[in-house]
């Protein structure tokens, strides 16, 4: 197991290096640059050149890349060309917001989707099944930004049940510890802050959960259907095992394996969804920040943010693989 982890982590190095080269080249292909984006259209050519040399952009490309690599190795992620603040600071300030939203969405998707998929499979062809299947199909087909927008218009603007945006009500007393507002409230005993943060999470969480929920429901349904036909389920039933034991230990344990993989792969799409959801609920996460960084041609922010996101994505999938081999002894990967 340890060897697997080490090997997988080592494999990461060339992948991330390759990605950094690609990102580096790709960003330089974007028309304009940080200097002209920051100075605006009316800046003189001299201003632009001065700024570019201040940012180190006048050096040859490979020099820039090696400087970037050297800084990366010393954990110096540079300074945002747009805001002038350290990239790491910008990241740590926003990352918890996105993670909190993403985790909420996945939790909603799993808590609702798994039982729903199970019930749908159990009563195949029944109203529950038809409802779950058509619901999940529609869930996939609604553009996330439209769903987020409609939820906001109806439940926040119209009915006023939920806040229209941001992560906390202004003026609420919340001490920052981890940056996760829900967690901070519990840690510091400010439970009203936790409650408020949760209240703010409801609508964006549901909007972002729409696609994972649909995927997880359908995957659970399909895989339960498959497992129910297995011989070992029949054996377990004919042994006279209690229904609940059969369901939990035999059916669910096997059926959830593909679902766990799906959760890992969904993290990528969550980030894309987050860009849209965050901008509608003015969430202040990394999604909307990257969007702005593209407009501002903020090279340091873009390169490092995307590299970190890729790293997180890969690590989550590694965790999923490990969890997988823990749950299923048949797929111990070597």
């Amino acid at each position, binding site marked *: 197991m340890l060897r697997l982890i080490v090997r*997988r982590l080592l*494999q*990461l190095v*060339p*992948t991330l290096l*390759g*990605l950094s080269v*690609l990102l580096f080249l*790709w*960003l330089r*292909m*974007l*028309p304009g640059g940080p200097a002209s984006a920051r100075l605006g259209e009316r800046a003189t050519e001299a201003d632009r050149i001065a700024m570019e040399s201040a940012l180190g952009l006048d050096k040859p490309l490979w020099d820039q890349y090696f400087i970037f690599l050297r800084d990366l190795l010393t954990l110096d992620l540079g300074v945002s060309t747009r805001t002038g603040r350290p990239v790491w600071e910008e990241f740590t300030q926003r990352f918890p917001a996105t993670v909190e939203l993403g985790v909420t969405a996945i939790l909603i998707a799993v808590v609702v989707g798994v039982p729903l998929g199970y019930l749908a499979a159990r009563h195949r062809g029944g109203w529950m099944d038809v409802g779950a299947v058509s619901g999940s*199909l*529609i869930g*996939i*087909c*609604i*553009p*996330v*930004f*439209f769903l987020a*927008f409609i939820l906001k*218009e109806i439940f926040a*603007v119209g009915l006023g049940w939920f806040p229209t945006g941001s992560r906390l009500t202004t003026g609420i007393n919340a001490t920052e510890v981890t940056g996760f507002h829900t967690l901070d409230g519990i840690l510091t005993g400010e439970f009203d802050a936790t409650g408020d943060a949760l209240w703010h999470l409801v609508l964006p969480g549901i909007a972002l959960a729409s696609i994972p929920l649909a995927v997880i429901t359908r995957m659970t349904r399909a895989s339960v*259907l*498959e497992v129910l036909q297995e011989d070992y389920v029949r054996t377990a039933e004919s042994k006279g095992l209690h229904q609940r034991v059969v369901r939990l230990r035999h059916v669910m344990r096997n059926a959830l*394996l*593909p679902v*766990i*993989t799906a959760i*890992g*792969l969904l993290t*990528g*799409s969550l*980030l*894309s*969804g987050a*860009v*849209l959801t965050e*901008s509608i609920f003015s969430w202040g996460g990394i999604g909307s920040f*990257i*969007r702005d960084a*593209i*407009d501002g041609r903020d090279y340091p922010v873009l390169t490092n943010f*995307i590299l970190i*996101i*890729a790293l997180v*994505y*890969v690590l989550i*999938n*590694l965790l*999923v*693989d490990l969890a*997988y081999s823990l749950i299923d002894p048949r*797929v111990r*990967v070597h």
Partner: protein
Amino acid sequence: MSTERNEPREPDDAARADGASPEGAVPEPAGTATTPTAGATTGGPGPAAPAGPERAESPLAKARMSKADKIDRLAQLTAQRTTSSGDSLWVAAFRRLRSSKMAIIGAVIIAVFVVLAIIGPWIAPYSPTAQTWRGEVFSNRGIFVGPRAENWLGLDNLGRDQLSRLLVGARQTLLVGVVATVIGFVVGALIGGLSGAALALGGRTGQRIDTVIMRFIDMMLALPSLLLAVSIAAVMGQSLTTVMIAVGVVQIPIFARLLRGSMLAQANADYVLAARSLGVRRRRIVLAHVLPNSLGPVIVQCTLVLATAIIEAAALSFLGLGNLDAAQPEWGVMLAQAQRFFDAAPMLAVYPALGIIITALGFTLLGEAMREALDPKLRS
């Protein structure tokens, strides 16, 4: 981000791939014994089906056949995609598809959409750019003209006929979906096919090629797709072509991985073993047998990607990167623009949204039904 990451998924891919593989392609001594006329009834592309006695020849006798004979025989074996009902796999799958309610609903939706996309610009009562200025149509006053006799769905914020714009927009929307899918499919299938072929053709070199390609694909997968699309749009400027390319590129790694996984699953199939034992060259096995049989799941994916492409194009429009040419209204852009006036005229957003959702649903329904029809595990 190694290839192992997707290993848990591969049984699933394999299963789907199996669905696409000819069941009857498994060399079938049993089949030849019990149904000697199977070859005749299904009419394989090989020479006339041999008579019973000849087919019962011993394997040794087969080994004496000339090379051309061997290939013909193999073609015959693989062509006899007989299922228990005596139909080829594709015919059986098509029959299941026809009896599937999901498929029918999906196909009807797609048909209506395609017809609208073709004739839309002709039946549209007004030009999509024609503005009706009647004093009351000033969006800044928050007054919109709702449905009336001359404009069935009302006018938009600039006084343009909403129905006409929707009709004309159907074509743009379909165009974006189809072109993006074609880009993703062609490039993705090339990369995935190359990788799968390299692996299947064996050898250490093949493995290395596959590893390098898959690392690259994994890198693409690790990038959030929408950000990739946004940055492509930033490079190329705003136009319909940009949206198509941006949405298409995002689909490349998915197609590549799918085809490779599918080919990998096929490479272990019995008929490949049979072909190899008949002495068919590896390259021929890969190109003539493995590749065509692996395409099933990829084709299914095309249908599903069409839906995603339409939705992603709308998302790009929402982020302000859509095609702003007023003469080429696209549902995504219409939706994104109408959201600003949602309080005053919610229906302006609801119509294009419904259009997008229903169309995406049509492609998804058909795609899912196709996947089910091709899946041997779900066969009743």
